[in-house]
């Protein structure tokens, strides 16, 4: 069973990164980005593109995907989210759903609709395994968890220890107050979205070698990311991360016990139950829901 937990943590890392990205965008724009999962897929595909077309190694692919993700995020905020926000909250939701289609089928146009393989981070990872507490941990899985922690550390340092990071948080917390101080709120918002999409792209590349990149998995990843975010609390970064991990573990445990069919409805029901019973999640605050 521990084996399943490890697998769950691995795929859960992807969900955690989605959930965290949703949290960051929610903070910055007060809306949910339904296309977050698609950006994860896109990130993996960008890395794949780097590896196959530029003949780069997978690490370069990771870096490239993350950087491009940041740029794409900036563009997404500037050309989709911001104009839609002027038309109302419903418009932003619809725009992000529209984005799902653009990305979902757009990447099939460029890379084809079949999922593609991404090289493992430390070459032939099939044979490199560690044993701990009766479970085997493949090298790639270790990379995923390790890099997840690294990403979280970097984000923490940025948002908690740098002046600009605090300014970005301030702009999300109180745009009017931020303007009074002379912070460019529009740019801060764009940077937040950029970071969130970069995070998604990073995540997509991380789990790419395990789950293959591309295909139609984007919506499923988005949804499981949401479930994680709702479970942990949309307004709590720690909550979102933990929530994503938990969803991954629950999914793998259910698959192990009851086969593939059951895990999805259970996870979705969990979403509905959480929304009804405790919409602010385990770590969130009531204030956020009344927003």
């Amino acid at each position: 069973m521990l084996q399943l937990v490890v697998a769950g943590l691995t795929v859960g890392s992807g969900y955690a990164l989605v959930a965290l990205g949703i949290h960051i965008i929610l903070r910055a724009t007060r809306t949910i980005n339904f296309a977050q999962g698609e950006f994860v897929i896109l990130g993996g595909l960008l890395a794949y593109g780097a590896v196959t077309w530029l003949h780069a190694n997978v690490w370069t692919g990771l870096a490239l995907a993350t950087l491009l993700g940041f740029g794409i995020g900036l563009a997404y905020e500037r050309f989709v989210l911001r104009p839609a926000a002027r038309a109302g909250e419903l418009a932003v939701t619809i725009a992000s759903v529209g984005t799902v289609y653009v990305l979902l089928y757009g990447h099939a146009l460029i890379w084809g609709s079949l999922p593609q393989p991404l090289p493992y981070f430390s070459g032939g990872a099939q044979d490199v395994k560690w044993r701990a507490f009766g479970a085997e941990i493949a090298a790639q899985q270790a990379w995923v968890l390790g890099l997840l922690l690294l990403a979280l550390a970097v984000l923490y340092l940025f948002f908690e220890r740098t002046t600009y990071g605090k300014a970005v948080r301030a702009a999300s917390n109180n745009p009017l107050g931020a303007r009074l101080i002379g912070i460019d709120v529009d740019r801060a918002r764009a940077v937040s979205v950029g970071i969130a999409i970069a995070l998604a792209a990073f995540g997509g590349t991380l789990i790419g070698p395990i789950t293959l990149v591309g295909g139609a998995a984007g919506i499923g990843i988005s949804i499981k990311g949401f479930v994680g975010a709702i479970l942990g609390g949309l307004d709590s970064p720690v909550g979102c991360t933990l929530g994503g991990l938990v969803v991954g573990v629950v999914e793998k445990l259910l698959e192990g016990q009851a086969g593939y069919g059951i895990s999805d409805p259970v996870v979705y029901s969990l979403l509905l139950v959480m929304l009804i019973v405790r919409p602010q999640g385990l770590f969130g605050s009531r204030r956020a829901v009344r927003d």
Partner: protein
Amino acid sequence: MNRDLRDDGRILPFAALLVVAFGILARGDANLMQAGTFAAIDAVAAIGLGVLLGNVAQISLGQAGFFGVGAYALAYLTTAVTWPASVPLWLQFVAGTAAGTLLAALFGLVLGLIALRFKGHYLAMATLAFGLIAAGVFRATAALGGASGIANIPYAQFGALSISGVPAFWYAWGMAAVVASLTFNLLRGRTGRAFEAIRNDELAAETIGVPTRRFKIVAFTYAGALAGFAGSFYGSYLGLIEPGGVSVNFSIDLLLMVVLGGAGRISGAILGATIVGLTNIYGHNLENWRPVVYGILVIAIVIAFPRGLIGIVPRRRDAKAAPAPDSPGPAAASPALARLRVDLPADAEWLVVEHAVKRFGGLVAVNDVGFALERGKLTSLIGPNGAGKTTLFNAICGIGRVTSGRVLVAGRDVTAWQPHRIAALGVGRSFQNARLFGEMTVLENVVAGAFRAESASFASDLLALPASRRSGALAGDLARDALARLGLEALSGARARDLAFGDRRRVELARAIAARPGLLLVDEPAAGLNASERARLRDDLLRLRDDGITLLLIEHDMRLVMDVSDRVMVLKLGSLIADGAPARVRDDPQVIAAYLGTGV
């Protein structure tokens, strides 16, 4: 009837002609017939979602679930159930369709109840979850065929006629025509007016007596029913239903159709479904381009062309916006109007507040306030900033509740009531920032204000029964009367959003008095008005009082207050510090200190 609906009234018959022409010209091409049939099926579901999204501004990403319920219900009833031999096939089909529609409507109701708790993105996610769970249940239930679904669903058979191929095309579009007409009736009636009010400003809608929760549930139920109805025929037409066909992708498809064509327009929903349906068949080699283009179009539409593709059709410039009067008699004589005047028992007053306390966490906004308004008088509630006046106002009309104490309106204890119930007792309210229904015309706004006088039921709206027309006519008469009382007839056709500031105030006042309230709460009516507008406001307020309405005013303009009030109450930091005739209150040293502070 709003402009969009009237335009639809012109467009839809024309669209019907197009469909007929298509059906005749294309009947030899099986592919085209099939595309057309699917377009009709999608159109029915899209009309339902269009009502939800465009008319009540509620999003649903779970419509595929209802579609699936309809399809599976019909499939199950016509394949897995053994009917007695005497039951003809067409009856089985009808039973299946009815079951599918009703079941889907029921689930729509449930979703509506759940959806009430959520706003914005939480709502979208709740509906998404709903649709996902439905798809998951379909996939997991063995009795419904599990992952492979149900196959060999028989065609509907009416005698010798099998509803497949060309007949299916006509049947499907006949279905769509019926649904379009019913929906048109619904939107033209009291239900449609309620929807529009909710979409424009939910809070204001409550205060004019629209039970917003009830109508949102109605919208979800209707959207569910329509999706189920469409799904039932889909199952019979395709002959097969499997979980993949009713997944979240289809929900998103429907959403895109509605937005693409034009949310809130019946013709828009049909247009969107047709475009997607036709290009589905003819865009095979453009397989992945289509959705990308749809996605881009949808984004562009919400940003720049909110009216969707149907918005390309030019609007008719038409100033008449009222439902036509049923009979040319004076409205005052009608019995429905007489019912409007709430009979105030001799010993009751319009408003009594007892020991009202309102706490927000540690802050006490209203501190043991009590008073009784004198019938037919104009009372002003004044006090420095942050004194708790608006909080008190809100508690009186049901927006927000007192922490302890009682509020009695017309002798009834309304302390825990919803705003629309209090409004139904005969209370009108205007807001500090004139919450008009921006997209409606002035007349439509005031007609909406007469909502509590309307009594048509959902069914009579749907079937365009005489009761529905009479209801609308009554509202129209009341509205015109209210506009006349305030001298606003000339503005009837103007769009509320475009009004000058001073006019907005007066239109809101007209809307508040349309249903002939006995108690009128007016919140800072003078703010932002220039001198001549203030003079006119003064006249309006006095005239309303002389007509017999009891008025409670929050106001900062002291000159106005002193001029029009019969009685002035002063609130400071939540407590009443003075209460009496204007002149006496003005000279009260406590009041002076409250406003100017203490100093030398």
